[in-house]
């Protein structure tokens, strides 16, 4: 599913060069649930952004489903994100001016899905995160856990093969965090969705198939 060869990411300014990632070799198979751990600033989010085509590596190759994607033109990478990848962020990033339904349907809008079909898929996704009763609520009318579940519904509404989660439980208490992890586990188990999750929480990481540890931009385990 995912193959990274010798990936490097450097941020250059006139005076200094900061290496965020170096010599990353990584294979993640379809249907795996992998967590990435490491201290702050070790490059976890950078790696996730590269995996999600939100950022480009400075060097190296990235194969997604056997296709080289590290230097795709922006339109193509937008298309690939839309078709294959779903994102879950630590701070949810729901659009406050839109209700739950309108937030969840966003990926489908850029896929040109008709209104009827969108409503059906949104209902299905909300059902999976048990929020069907909240379709017309706005984000500020929901608890943190519910907001994250809406964000998950948005991430899975287009049935992506790969789900990238950046500290999905980081802003939640342990009870809500467990709920969110249960949903992710279920998605992974029932739909063979590949999931890569960045986390600081050892307890949650232990629930995944494998833990990758990053230190100073290098994979150490």
């Amino acid at each position, binding site marked *: 599913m995912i193959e990274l060869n010798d990936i490097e990411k450097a941020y250059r300014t006139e005076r200094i060069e900061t290496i965020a990632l170096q010599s990353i070799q990584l294979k993640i198979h379809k249907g795996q649930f992998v967590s990435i751990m490491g201290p702050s600033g070790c490059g976890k989010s950078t790696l996730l952004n590269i995996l999600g085509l*939100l950022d480009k590596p400075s060097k190296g190759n990235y194969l997604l489903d056997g296709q080289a994607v590290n230097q795709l033109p922006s339109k193509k990478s937008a*298309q690939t*994100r839309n078709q294959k990848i779903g994102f879950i962020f630590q701070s949810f*990033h729901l659009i406050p001016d839109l209700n739950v339904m*309108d937030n969840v349907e966003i990926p489908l809008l850029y896929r040109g899905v008709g209104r009827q079909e969108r409503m059906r898929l949104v209902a299905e996704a909300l059902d999976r995160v048990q929020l069907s009763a909240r379709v017309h609520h706005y984000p500020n009318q929901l608890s943190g856990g519910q907001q994250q579940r809406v964000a998950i519904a948005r991430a899975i509404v287009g049935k992506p093969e790969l789900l990238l989660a950046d500290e999905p439980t980081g802003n939640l208490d342990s009870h809500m965090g467990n709920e969110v992890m249960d949903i992710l586990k279920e998605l992974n188990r029932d739909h063979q969705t590949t999931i890569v999750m960045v986390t600081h929480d050892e307890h949650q990481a232990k629930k995944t198939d494998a833990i990758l540890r990053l230190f100073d931009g290098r994979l150490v385990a």
Partner: protein
Amino acid sequence: MHSFKLLLKVLARRKFFTLVNLFGISFTLMVLLVGTTLFENFLFPRGPEKRSDLMLVAQRLEMTNDDNTTTWTSDAGYYFLDRFVRPMKTPHKFAIMGNATTVMNYQSGAKVELAMRPADGNIWDILDYQFLAGGPFSEAQNQAAAQVAIVSRGTAETVFGTDQVLGKSLEINGLVYEVIGVVQNVSRLESRAYGEVWVPINSLKDQSFKDKIVDDFLGFFLAEKASDLPLIKDEYDEVIKNVVFPDPSFTVLRGGADNKIEMMARSVFGGYEKETQAGQLLGVILGLVLLFMTLPAINLMNLNTSRIMERSSEIGVRKAFGATTWDLMKQLLRENLLLTTLGGLVGLLLAVLVLSLIASSQIFPYFEWHLNFRVFLAGFFLVCVFGLYSGLYPAFNMSRLEVVSSLKRRAL
């Protein structure tokens, strides 16, 4: 729908700011719509000048003596028009009418000022004055210096207190005229046809105008078809070059036969060449319109830019889930066009209000305005230009935001 709902929400977030901007847009578009309507009514009149597309007018002239020491600029003189222009072959019809002069009338017991136009009997074939009663005087009556007058409805009501005035006597400059026709009031915007009383040229007491090359008269040409207009201009140019001056010290005459926009260009830029700077005039007008739009457009750009910063997280999310740069630009332009259309609608209402006020005040006497399809189309075009003008830069800025950095901003 998605976009419309979102726009309303985004606008409602900063109500005061939005209101100020909406006011700016509405006010700008209102002024532009009023301007467009006046301009449209000027260029495409519905009154006596309704055949403007087939009309040319010989008006401004410049006469210079042989050693270039004396230059005389004025409107055309009767002698020039009657003797040299009237025999022209290319015009379908030709008529002479003097500029409006203010005359006094005391018949109603109060002093009434009237705009009087001395005309020949052919003017009625070129200008479509709408007769409410009676009819025009003929060229034969003009030749016979008949003391007959045509009055506008407004004049009839002011002087006689009624519009049943046929056969009544009207005193002008110590002469008594018999009213033989009443015409619909003429808007001041139709400056070439405007008047309140029309009398035969030959009936004027002082006939000293008859030997003048430059004076206070206009020559009206009517072409049979639009393709004849350049031929008339060419022939008029020949006539001007070959004029024989009664005063032999003058040798050069310059001027041109103009349509409405050319006449306006000549009065703005001056010049007595055959060709006017009508193109430049339209350019200047367009430039002024753009300049006038600039301030509210910059305001809107600022508002948009600050909103984009507030919405950077939304933009990040949309990009992450597959929106292309073009998708996002379209979204913002659509939102902006919706906002400007909203402002345009309010502007349209304001324009109707202002035009009614202009019509009921007497800034342009007898001005009747029409918001027709052409004005509406022009207004819609202006709204679109404004929407794109003010939206493109912020949209471009927005589309360049990097997903990662826009998601890091937490300003949702």
